[in-house]
């Protein structure tokens, strides 16, 4: 292709203003995902789930008289590839309902701002708030932790002065969660014992010894599924039988195949803005059934629900933008920011109008259960801790 082919300029057609990625027949969305690197399992679920939505909506005639299509680029969690892929497809997409990898999102955030492309990252740190073009779907990690601590306080009968361990990844995910946990701890009068780890750490025996030595009554973990399994599994037999709470990225159904499965069922809770795949909610059940029908080999992990949900929201945004006769990048962002009460049926209603705030403050508490679809069931319905509203979000400062 030669230079100047990209239609970066907004155009007018059929009474609807259109922009990059929008033709008379198709609206193309972009996905910068990881299908060959460390987050490939998550990437695969999300890509599948989003494709599922696109197929459904196209079967119904599409949006704004146009079919939806997704241009998927696999960056394998390589920042350089991701940036190149972004440069390649940005001129031909109306938005990104999926970008995986915190490093990728952070590397792209300035470009996204400049190009004003609505983007839903599959990461939930509050530091990504405050940007009109970036939307975190659901709660942020810190809000999840504030809600989760409230739950733990009852489950572990925390008293003032008790200690709670927090094992967290270095980086946005862990640090944002830690901020929330510290805030909640302050409210509860408990003390947080920090244990920072790296994504490549799989042996947590030293951390467990340290936490036991400190006499923690409960543990928060903001890490990956294998770390959670190790912590709960070894902790349970090494004299650290306390409730453990993690965020959605800290659990994956496959860890229920490990030797730690029993301990996980007994001790682990997952806090999440999305309900469990095994939740008794009609839309979720339908999603689980449709997904299994289309991808018999697929895993029903939380990526399915969050990916589908994100895509569905994007679809609603496009519908709203169509109604406003503006499918340009700016038009889509504007349409998105007017959604105050978005209810996809796959979680709690969300409000996207205030860029400084999370779209919702409500989280579910989920519990591992080997038998359930996606190995998770709902332990407590979505709720919100009033104190969370007092919490000062990092990006809002």
């Amino acid at each position: 292709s030669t230079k100047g082919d990209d239609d970066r300029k907004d155009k007018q057609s059929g009474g609807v203003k259109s922009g990059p990625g929008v033709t008379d027949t198709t609206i193309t969305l972009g996905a910068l995902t990881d299908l060959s690197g460390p987050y490939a399992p998550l990437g695969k679920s999300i890509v599948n789930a989003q494709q599922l939505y696109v197929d459904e909506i196209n079967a119904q005639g599409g949006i704004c008289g146009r079919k939806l299509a997704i241009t998927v680029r696999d960056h394998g969690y390589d920042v350089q590839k991701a940036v190149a892929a972004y440069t390649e497809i940005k001129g031909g997409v109306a938005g990104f309902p999926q970008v995986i990898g915190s490093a990728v999102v952070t590397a792209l955030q300035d470009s996204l701002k400049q190009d004003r492309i609505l983007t839903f990252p599959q990461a939930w740190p509050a530091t990504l708030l405050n940007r009109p073009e970036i939307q975190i779907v659901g709660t942020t990690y810190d809000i999840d932790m504030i809600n989760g601590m409230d739950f733990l306080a009852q489950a572990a009968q925390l008293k003032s002065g008790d200690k709670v361990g927090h094992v967290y990844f270095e980086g946005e995910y862990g640090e944002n969660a830690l901020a929330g946990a510290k805030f909640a701890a302050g409210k509860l009068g408990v003390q947080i014992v920090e244990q920072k780890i790296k994504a490549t750490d799989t042996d947590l025996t030293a951390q467990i010894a340290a936490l036991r030595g400190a006499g923690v009554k409960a543990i928060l973990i903001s890490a990956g599924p294998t770390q959670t399994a190790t912590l709960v599994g070894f902790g349970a037999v090494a004299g650290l039988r306390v409730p453990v709470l993690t965020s959605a990225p800290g659990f994956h159904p496959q860890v229920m195949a490990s030797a730690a499965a029993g301990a996980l069922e007994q001790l682990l809770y997952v806090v999440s803005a999305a309900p469990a795949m095994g939740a008794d909610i009609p839309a979720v059940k339908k999603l689980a059934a449709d997904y299994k029908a289309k991808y018999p080999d697929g895993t029903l992990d939380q990526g399915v629900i969050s990916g589908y949900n994100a895509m569905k929201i994007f679809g609603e945004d496009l519908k709203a933008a169509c109604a406003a006769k503006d499918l340009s990048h700016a038009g889509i962002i504007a349409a998105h920011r007017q959604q105050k009460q978005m209810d996809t049926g796959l979680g709690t209603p969300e409000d996207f109008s205030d860029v400084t705030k999370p779209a919702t403050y409500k989280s579910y508490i989920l519990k591992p259960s080997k038998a359930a679809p996606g190995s998770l069931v709902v332990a407590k319905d979505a709720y919100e801790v009033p104190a969370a509203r007092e919490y000062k979000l990092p990006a809002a400062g």
Partner: protein
Amino acid sequence: MTKLAEIVLNGFALGSVYALIALGFVVIFKASGVINFAHASLLLLGGFTVAKLHDDLGFTLALLVAVGVTAAVAGLVEMVFIRGLGRTEVHTLTILTIGVDILLTTELTRRIGSDVLSLGDPWQAGVRDWGGVHVADARIACIVVAVLLIGTFFAAFRFTAWGLSMRAAAEDREAAALMGVRLGRVQLIAWCVAGALAAVAAVFLAAFPSAGLDRSTGQIALAAFPAAILGGMDSAAGALLGSLLVGLTSALTAGYQSDLSWLGANLGDVAPYVVMLLVLIWRPTGLLGSKERVRV
């Protein structure tokens, strides 16, 4: 006090896992002068084979098959890629192993997908409790196996004809050939041994307290690098000592990170490297590595 004891013991246990991995590097390094970056994928292959077979064959048989499979694959790598290039320099081979690693890892991670595989090892979630000090059974087994294998390897390396052939060939291929050393075979055996070791190491890498084998398990291999170096590449005691030291340092810095927070959080990953740098400044060929002496 039990905290310290537990951290120290588990640090050693972790070190013994590193030692097993490091041994795999050392064997190939000695035979071919190559840093085998494909070792990570061999680990993954070994673990994957055990995981897929243990349900049908039982653990022991599955492990034996896995040892055979990884040895065969490593041997194949040697025959197809390394041997033909016997005349070229080692760095070419080193980078070539990266290519091999990419191929193998891509295939294996594609197969593993999102699974966290259990290897069906006999130790399961068993834990020893010595007066409040907990160590996983699998880790104790690992210490024993590591000591045995490392001892055996270095003894073989020193005293057997194969070991001598390997050292001679590594030093001067032509002179070795003139002594009747079958260069191809000696090197082939070394690669097979390293492959077999990878399968054994994978078992302990994936065993309790780890959650199991997943697509990223192989990446730990690189953590064993400083272990191999720290002790010095050419002595059995050095290999063990270095590995244990690395395990211990990372365990101690992780376990006491709240007391070390002024150095920046999570020193656990950096500490082994800092220790290694200090050791190398003091002794440029590792703790027990023999001093480099040359004459003209």
